[in-house]
């Protein structure tokens, strides 16, 4: 396609997420208005019907998540979008999706919390909630992005991962990313890989085991209510989907739920790196904070400073080996994020020398700036305050 034929737009991050979801084959969205994610619902209310999809505004956040579970089981690629307070409400149903292995995408455009917090201000404090928000042992995939173009791409990725591994995938954006406008080039269909749902080849009338993994670990699905009858439950279940309390089956399922994600850390890791080859000071960041980190790296490189950036796009499962490898030669590691050190805690566990990991943060509802990062670096490098 020539440059003139490209689909180029100047859009908010939230709209890029919508475009990515439609590119990936989204056909069902259930949501509830909440700042700063509402634009996702508004754009989908207009655009989903155009592709034959369904948009439903539900009565609350819990209902939205449950409708998404139902629609996905019945065969549609499904998504919901929310922000902190809504994300809290959805947690039980996210656990249900994890337990019943329902592929779905949950967008959390983070704002400052807890509770109502700062409804229109930025934060990145839902990192741990994305991982541990719902109760019980499970694992989950969480992706982030720092440009509008990347928001498009990781949204497509999120659907691919959800479908491939039958798991909820959390897209952890933030208020700045959601509302910032940037150039978006929508690639022509087929340029980015799109994973379609793996449907069972088992014929009608033949026993179908919804929870019997194939050799490669994937579970072929059958559209709920279509040609096979099977059971879906949030209880521990056997390969038929029927509830069980047999310790060996429970044990097996816990390990399956955790291993199918944690065992694929390398496969699931997405990241970007800038000037890491010879960096003495390595910044680790994600989301909108990574933009400030990148600005600092670019300006300092012009002055000859050996500083680099590792931008994590996959936060969960946390790519420990990647972080260790990329920081192996660093004197200092600075984690730039807008919380009290949720990713820093993971980085400290990952690196060989946790004492040289420092936090650069801002938790006042404003974006962490390159100056903030520079100030902390100056102190650590012994150049005064």
């Amino acid at each position: 396609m020539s440059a003139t034929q490209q689909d180029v737009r100047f859009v908010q991050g939230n709209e890029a997420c919508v475009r990515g979801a439609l590119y990936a084959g989204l056909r069902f969205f259930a949501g509830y208005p909440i700042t700063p994610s509402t634009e996702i619902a508004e754009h989908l209310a207009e655009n989903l019907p155009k592709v034959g999809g369904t948009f439903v505004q539900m009565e609350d956040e819990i209902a939205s998540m449950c409708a998404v579970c139902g629609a996905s089981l019945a065969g549609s690629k499904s998504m919901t979008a929310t922000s902190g307070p809504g994300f809290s409400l959805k947690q039980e149903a996210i656990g249900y999706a994890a337990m019943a292995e329902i592929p779905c995408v949950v967008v959390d455009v983070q704002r400052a919390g807890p509770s109502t917090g700062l409804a229109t201000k930025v934060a990145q404090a839902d990192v741990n909630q994305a991982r541990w928000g719902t109760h019980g042992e499970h694992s989950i995939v969480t992706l982030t992005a720092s440009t509008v173009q990347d928001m498009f791409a990781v949204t497509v990725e999120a659907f691919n991962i959800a479908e491939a591994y039958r798991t909820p995938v959390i897209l952890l954006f933030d208020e700045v990313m959601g509302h910032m406008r940037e150039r978006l080039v929508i690639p022509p269909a087929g340029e980015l890989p799109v994973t379609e749902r793996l449907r069972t080849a088992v014929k009608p009338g033949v026993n179908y085991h919804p929870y019997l993994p194939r050799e490669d670990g994937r579970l072929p699905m059958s559209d709920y209510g279509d040609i096979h009858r099977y059971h879906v439950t949030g209880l521990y279940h056997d390969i038929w989907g029927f509830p069980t309390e047999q310790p060996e089956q429970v044990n097996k399922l816990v390990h399956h739920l955790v291993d199918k994600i944690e065992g694929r850390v390398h496969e699931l890791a997405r990241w970007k790196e800038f000037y890491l080859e010879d960096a003495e000071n390595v910044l680790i960041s994600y989301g909108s904070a990574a933009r400030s980190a990148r600005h600092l790296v670019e300006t300092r490189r012009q002055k000859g400073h050996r500083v680099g950036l590792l931008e994590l796009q996959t936060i969960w499962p946390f790519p420990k080996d990647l972080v260790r490898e990329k920081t192996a030669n660093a004197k200092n590691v600075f984690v730039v994020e807008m919380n009290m050190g949720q990713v820093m805690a993971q980085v400290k566990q990952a690196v060989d020398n946790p004492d040289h990991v420092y936090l650069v943060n801002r938790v006042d509802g404003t974006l962490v700036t390159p100056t903030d990062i520079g100030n902390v670096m100056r102190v650590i490098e012994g150049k005064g305050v």
Partner: protein
Amino acid sequence: MSTMDTLMNNEDLVSPGLSACQGCPAELSLRTAFKVLGPKTVLGVPPGCIAGVGVPGWGLKTGMKTPVVMPLLGNSASLMAGVKQAYAKIDPEVHCVVFAGDGATVDSGLQTLSAAAERGENIIYFCYDNEGYMNTGFQKSGTTPHGAHMSTSPFGPYSRGNVGFKKDVPLMLATQDAAYVATLCPSHVQDFVNKVQRATEVKDGLCYLHIMSPCPTGWGVKPDQSIQYARAAVESLYFPLFEYDHGTFTISRPSLRAGKKPRPVSEFIAGQRRFRHLTEEEIQQLQDDVTRKWNLLNKLAS
């Protein structure tokens, strides 16, 4: 005390200078209600327009001359039920009042509201119904009328505005035996004041007062027309005024008068931007719905 005396003599318990969008009658309703409720009142305001304009206070400025608590969006009824239970032991004369929008009431808050009514919690719950999530940019809610163009129920080549019909929570709560249920409209102040007065006298259960509150910004009408539209809602029977008091339905006087020769719903719809795409058939559909509801109400009140 007569309505005029109440409004003239009682203190305005909403801070001076506090104002909502131009022409918003929710602020007027709040001021009017509090003149009747009096200073021995604790107010709960969940997120929404009225919280957004600063009623819970902002910075160093207070929004009310009474204590205000800001609950979560979907559970004001339970939080205020807790407050009332505690106050019952301190001073049972204190009114525990919720002033919530329609989103926080009929959508996410319905479970806690219905449960509070079932338990007989003695709180006064006001819902100012502007028929959408107006302070976040006009998303549709459970009380958005059929066909209305909202940001999440757009009119376009693939959709024709809101699919559902307005959820009737006053009737729902009446049929589940809340102690006192009433519909109020800022265009009919005397009726408004009488109903709030009655709510303050009820001591044996939940009082639910549903206020029609035209939103000039969201409905797409001029700010100086909001009371005219409120009046048209009553006179076209789109929003009938009635009371349900411990088992008895009564149609209120303004609606009784309107019922004799109701204005067509099209007069209420005319000029509203959210309805401008409606066809004759769709308007007729709304009219039929209004007539059906009015007949039902008459049966209940007979």
